[in-house]
């Protein structure tokens, strides 16, 4: 089966590459040669499964890393080859000149030229003109894929129709761009894109008519399709004929009539013959034309099928009239061209094949005039006749192979072939087919696939491939993520890794990516992205933000570390408002001892700064008595208690509160982890080279001051046993 080209070589210009600015990117341009076009470049023998292998798209490093006059053999012999590396968030690759020999025989001295340091960046850029189509169709996809066509048929059809409307709109935009871009370098791309999208449009509508519109006869729909995608006959010919005096004798009259008949354009034929009749002076000829008009007016409409075989009967009777006409004298009067016209009307296959110019035209005409009520499943014999006449022995284009697969109602083959034509087409068609049950593989013997561990979902396979083809444009991340999200376990698994690699250039984008992960329960990804952002914020000194993100990434150890840094920063500089900083950490996060402490500590400082000594004291004691307050912060609290203990007019701490403080002090200083517990105290004016013991001793001396103050306060509180906050 054909693969999805990763870097689609639809045009040379699609391969953006960096311009030469630095030495190693000496000539990083890509040149596509002989890679095979999309819609018309891949040909093989019709209906031969073995011949369905498509040529492998090949990219050439241009200009070559090999210098002029050097043969590939010599270049390789001089220890050179090429290697590649994937870009992690896309399927793009960087290719570079590498040493060919392994470490065990690598020459110690290797002569290197500038060409040996070239890196070729193969970027599959998406043309700007296609972006609106991609994003609009993503919206349509979201609606269709989440709607059941059997439960809500009208709604589904409304959504589904937007695909074809979108394709048509995009084509109009491309036609418009051709006029503007005639002189620009993009014109080649636009011409190729038009060719591709015209194919996509034809395939999409044909598939729609064959698979999804069962209530209308295919003979009628196929004619409509042919008119939409292969407009003939030429309108100008018709206008010329109308202006001409002797219409019947005009050399283009009968060919025009034949073409209109082949295309089922009854009204045009009748109109033109009536005009000829009006001009006609010969009574015999006029009678013949008049009889022909009556025959033509009697063509039964193929638009609807009447029940109980009435349509078939009506068609049979009408053909009897046609046969009678061919046996009448009118035939002699009108001549051989009219005979050909009657040949078409009577369903003379030889005659039709003689007059048509393509298998589609022949198919439409034979179907219309031999069996207009033919079921979609019985088209095989007619299809075979037309294909044999026009395609046998010739190379068959991919587009023709797809159309034939559709006419054979082979949904799997249709999808497989569409996979080679266009990633967008196959993804969205597979989604629609899947919803209508056309991709049910349960009846197909593919046991070897089952053993591969794949969950055998063709729809997912192609939608994932399409999403991957968009990855080169980071601005399309929401669409990419949305497609992957709706592709089962595999899609979600890919999404969970890929979304972590979406560059977060701005906080707005970071927020959107996080929101997406949260909304869709991408828990691992959410935590991973939070963690990366947290590291960045910490690097920037945005501790509150870093804490928030570390909390969201469920990493309490890093929260503790950043909280310590924040505290140290605050204690050393006091250059920011701790309460403001801590307030910015939303309260909805899971409780965290360090953050809870920071909040309480900031409140304590606020109260103290605003002169509410008693309140501040009470807050400080409650922090100390909270079991979850990390012990390493006790030293800070005791140190902060000092001015309150020494308050001139008020006893801030009563006896009990003083005992709480004293117990905390003794627990710290008596602990074997003393050095760790005291580490947040300001570093005294010792040299950087001071030993840990010396630093700890110096910090302990600070707390000895606190001890003295505590003893004094205890005495005061015993002497004045009143409530905390009372004046002495």
């Amino acid at each position, binding site marked *: 089966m*054909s693969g999805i080209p990763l870097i689609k070589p639809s045009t040379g210009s699609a391969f953006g590459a960096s311009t030469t*600015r630095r030495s190693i990117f000496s000539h990083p341009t890509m040149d596509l040669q002989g890679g095979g076009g999309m819609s018309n470049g891949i040909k093989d023998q019709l209906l031969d499964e073995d011949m369905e292998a498509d040529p492998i798209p090949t990219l050439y490093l241009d200009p070559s890393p090999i210098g002029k006059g050097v043969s590939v053999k010599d270049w390789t012999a001089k220890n050179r080859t090429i290697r*590649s590396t994937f870009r992690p*968030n896309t399927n793009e690759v960087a290719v570079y000149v590498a040493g060919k020999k392994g470490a065990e025989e690598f020459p110690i001295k290797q002569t290197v030229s500038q060409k040996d340091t070239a890196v070729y960046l193969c970027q599959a850029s998406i043309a700007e003109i296609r972006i609106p189509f991609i994003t609009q169709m993503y919206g349509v996809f979201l609606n269709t894929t989440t709607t059941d066509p059997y439960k809500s048929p009208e709604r589904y059809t409304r959504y589904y129709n937007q695909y074809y409307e979108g394709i048509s709109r995009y084509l109009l935009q491309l036609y418009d761009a051709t006029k503007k871009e005639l002189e620009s370098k993009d014109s080649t791309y636009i011409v190729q894109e038009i060719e591709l999208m015209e194919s996509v449009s034809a395939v999409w509508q044909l598939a729609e008519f064959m698979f999804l519109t069962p209530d209308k006869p295919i003979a009628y729909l196929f004619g409509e399709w042919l008119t939409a995608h292969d407009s003939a006959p030429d309108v100008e010919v018709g206008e010329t004929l109308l202006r001409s005096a002797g219409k019947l004798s005009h050399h283009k009259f009968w060919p025009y009539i034949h073409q209109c008949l082949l295309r089922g354009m009854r009204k045009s034929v009748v109109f033109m013959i009536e005009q000829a009749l009006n001009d006609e002076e010969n009574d015999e000829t006029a009678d013949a034309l008049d009889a022909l008009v009556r025959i033509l007016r009697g063509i039964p409409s193929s638009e609807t099928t009447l029940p109980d075989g009435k349509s078939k009967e009506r068609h049979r009777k009408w053909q009897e009239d046609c046969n009678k006409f061919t046996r009448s004298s009118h035939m002699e009067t009108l001549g051989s061209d009219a005979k050909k016209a009657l040949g078409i009307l009577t369903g003379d296959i030889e005659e039709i094949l003689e007059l048509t110019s393509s298998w589609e035209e022949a198919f439409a005409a034979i179907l219309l005039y031999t069996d207009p009520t033919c079921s979609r499943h019985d088209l095989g014999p007619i299809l075979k006749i037309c294909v044999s006449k026009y395609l046998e022995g010739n190379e068959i284009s991919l587009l023709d192979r797809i159309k034939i697969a559709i006419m054979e109602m082979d949904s799997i083959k249709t999808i497989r072939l569409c996979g080679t034509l266009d990633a967008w087409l196959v993804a969205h068609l597979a989604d629609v087919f899947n919803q209508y049950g056309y991709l049910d593989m349960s009846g197909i013997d593919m046991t070897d696939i089952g*053993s591969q561990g794949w969950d055998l979902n063709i729809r997912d396979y192609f939608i994932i491939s399409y999403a991957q083809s968009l990855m080169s444009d980071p601005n399309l991340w929401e669409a990419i993520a949305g497609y992957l999200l709706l592709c089962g376990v595999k899609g979600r698994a890919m999404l969970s890794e890929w979304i972590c690699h979406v560059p977060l250039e701005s906080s707005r984008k970071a927020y959107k990516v996080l929101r997406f992960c949260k909304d869709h329960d991408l828990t*691992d990804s959410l935590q991973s992205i939070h963690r*990366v952002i947290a590291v960045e914020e910490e690097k920037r000194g945005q501790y509150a933000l870093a804490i928030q993100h570390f909390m969201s990434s469920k990493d309490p150890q890093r929260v503790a570390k950043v909280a310590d840094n924040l505290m140290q920063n605050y204690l050393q500089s006091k250059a920011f408002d701790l309460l403001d900083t801590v307030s910015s950490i939303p309260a909805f996060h899971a409780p965290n001892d360090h953050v809870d402490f920071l909040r309480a500590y900031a409140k304590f400082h606020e109260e103290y700064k605003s002169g509410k000594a008693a309140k501040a004291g009470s807050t400080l004691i409650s922090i100390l008595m909270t079991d979850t307050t990390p012990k390493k912060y006790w030293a800070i609290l005791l140190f902060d208690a000092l001015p309150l203990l020494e308050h001139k007019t008020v006893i801030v701490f009563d006896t009990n509160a003083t005992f709480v403080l004293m117990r905390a002090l003794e627990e710290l200083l008596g602990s074997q982890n003393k050095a760790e517990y005291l580490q947040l105290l300001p570093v005294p004016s010792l040299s950087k080279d001071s030993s840990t013991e010396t630093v700890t001793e110096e910090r302990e001396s600070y707390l000895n001051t606190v001890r003295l103050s505590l003893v004094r306060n205890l005495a005061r509180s015993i002497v004045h046993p009143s409530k905390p906050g009372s004046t002495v």
Partner: protein
Amino acid sequence: MIHDAQYDYYGKRLATCSSDRSIRIFDVDGENHRLAETLKGHEGPVWQISWAHPKFGCILASCSYDGKVFVWREQNGSWSRIKEHSSHTASVNSVAWAPHELGPLLACASSDGRVSVLSFKDDGSWDTATLDAHAIGCNSVGWAPATVPGSLTQQGPNSGKAAVSKRFCTAGCDNLVKIWAYREDTKTWKEEEVLEGHTDWVRDVAWAPNIGVPKSYLASCSQDKTVLIWTQDTPGAPWQKKALRSEKFADVVWRVSWSLSGNILAVSCGDNKITLWKENLNGDWECVSEMEEKNMAGGN
């Protein structure tokens, strides 16, 4: 000349390492690129580089013919060497950071036949575990995805509950591919599997990212001009091998690497061709794209 090029996690930086003993870091943005830094310090050709996950900071590891592994870090716009690992006695050919879920672990493969696994700690110190991996020399090392294959399916992908796997694979001059697993009970790395299939030195081995199915994929390439795809249907099941293509490649195959989505394999062959391969719905590998230098077409 360049021996390895690696994009960073977001694909916005490209690091290259060369026979001129240097490492160059480029900022790559669309069609623009800029040489941001040149790192020097190795005393021999630098064979390979590996970016750590950004949650550990902007960190790059490099290994060289000089037998050393350096860990570099960028902080406030400037790069510095923060670690030097010099316990190998011969060229260090490959370095690879473990999946971020496992913490900052770096595996290094050397021509002395050993693989060292460095485990970095928060306080700046690190532990080293050294394994005798391949008798004549070890050419490549690659980590398994952190999540156990299939656990995504059972728990629902991205549920935060997937089981964690701590394994890596190595490629050796003994023609073998080996899989090593960490045993939590003994806190040691243990040889879990020996995969025999190549008939000459195995040059590179790469474990495919986990794409949500119970199956594990491993690719190895060799001096014997073949690429083998090793698969394990479920954890614990026997590994099975399949040649990427029935006929041999035209030359030694030097490098295999998987795309992030795990379904495309890039193969670098000594015939100066890069081929991209994808497994189709039939389970067959098909070449979907080729890259080669321009003169090849003209048969120069």
